[in-house]
């Protein structure tokens, strides 16, 4: 009779005690700690992997709580960062697992370092821009990963083993300008859970040498439709990200201010090309002259000017709420924070 923390998982024949012993030696990196990241991270930590690294650029708001399972109302009230709040919660769930939360955007600058000793990577991001950077980084370093996407009541998942299966670039070919986002058409939490269930299952299979699925799978949990397509033969032999002649187009971007629309809100993120050049304490003084709606909690500086809310992280990265186009956001960033 197997007893103890992982008894039921060890009873599951494809994993067994052998698989459990493998899991405890593995390091999984979860990129994004929103809905998908939270769900995947909690399952993996409960499953008893050895080490989990969680990377997220965002902080917690009330509208996250409907589906981002690691966070509480208090986290939202305090505007805690997702990476650190997740780290605390996961540590409470399973203190044996080594957990690191990184409050940064996964990018072409830090990505290679973050994944260097990962055994598997989980996509918990909410935008294609970051996913294509991930795709390049993981193709270059030959790291296996699980793409996941969800919107409305639909879940999509695909496992990517660089060098063996098609990558995102092979299948999509360019950065999509998708009209539908969580912001415009919404999402229900069961769609998140189904997506994460596929991703974590594939991760557990890979880490215990059970092989992974070649299928791109889609489930509409509300409409109850299911579709799966074996995409093995769609590997592009001249892919710019994963073939022998790869040039990693998303890794080699020129420097400068970078912007991204955030899923779920009227928000633009502006990120300086060089990190660490911003002095938050100077900024507090300067902005304090312009508005009395200003608050510094030690992790983020929040201020409001003309109904636009700025949230400035220590690395200079800024979320600008209340604007819907990136150029306005860039201008506001340059006006109040500097570039």
């Amino acid at each position, binding site marked *: 009779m197997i007893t103890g923390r992982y008894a039921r998982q060890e009873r599951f024949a494809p994993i067994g005690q052998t698989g459990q012993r493998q899991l405890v030696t593995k390091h999984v990196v979860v990129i994004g700690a929103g*809905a998908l*990241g939270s769900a995947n991270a909690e399952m993996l930590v409960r499953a008893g992997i050895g080490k989990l690294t969680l990377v997220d650029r965002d902080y917690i708001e009330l509208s996250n709580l409907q589906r981002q399972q690691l966070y509480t109302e208090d986290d939202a009230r305090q505007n805690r960062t997702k990476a650190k709040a997740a780290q605390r919660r996961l540590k409470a769930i399973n203190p044996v697992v080594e957990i690191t939360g990184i409050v940064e955007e996964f990018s072409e600058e830090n990505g290679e370092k973050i994944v260097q000793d990962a055994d598997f990577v989980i996509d918990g991001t909410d935008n294609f821009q970051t996913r294509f950077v991930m795709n390049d980084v993981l193709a270059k370093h030959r790291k296996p990963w699980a793409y996941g996407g969800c919107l409305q009541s639909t879940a*999509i998942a695909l496992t990517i083993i660089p060098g063996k299966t098609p990558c*995102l670039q092979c299948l999509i070919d360019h950065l*999509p300008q*998708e009209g539908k*986002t969580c912001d415009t058409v919404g999402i229900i939490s069961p769609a998140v859970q189904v997506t994460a269930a596929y991703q974590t299952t594939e991760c557990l299979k890979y880490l215990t040498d059970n092989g992974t699925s070649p299928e791109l799978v*889609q489930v*509409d949990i509300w409409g109850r439709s299911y579709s*799966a397509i074996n995409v093995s033969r769609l590997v592009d032999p001249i892919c710019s990200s994963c073939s022998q002649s790869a040039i990693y187009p998303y890794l080699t971007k020129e420097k400068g201010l970078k912007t991204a629309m955030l899923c779920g809100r009227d928000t633009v993120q502006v990120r300086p090309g060089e990190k660490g050049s911003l002095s938050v304490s100077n900024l507090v003084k300067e902005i304090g002259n312009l508005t009395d709606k200003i608050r510094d909690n030690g992790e983020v500086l929040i201020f409001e000017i003309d109904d636009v809310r700025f949230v400035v992280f220590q690395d200079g990265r800024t979320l600008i709420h209340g604007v819907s186009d990136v150029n306005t956001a860039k201008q506001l960033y340059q006006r109040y924070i500097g570039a």
Partner: protein
Amino acid sequence: MQIHVNGRQVEVAKDSTIGELLKSFNIQAKLAVVEQNQQIINKTVYDETILTNGDTIEIVHFVGGG
């Protein structure tokens, strides 16, 4: 005529194409992977590929949310 899309019966006009089917579901062709009777169809020929009665179509399309 009738075809099966992701396991569901769907009524489509005679001689309609995969491109038109995607449009009717409001799916961007660039983001879709489509299988017709277990054959993956190349994205570049969606608009020329005619559906026939009884076809089994699988459509999966990438989404950005998460």
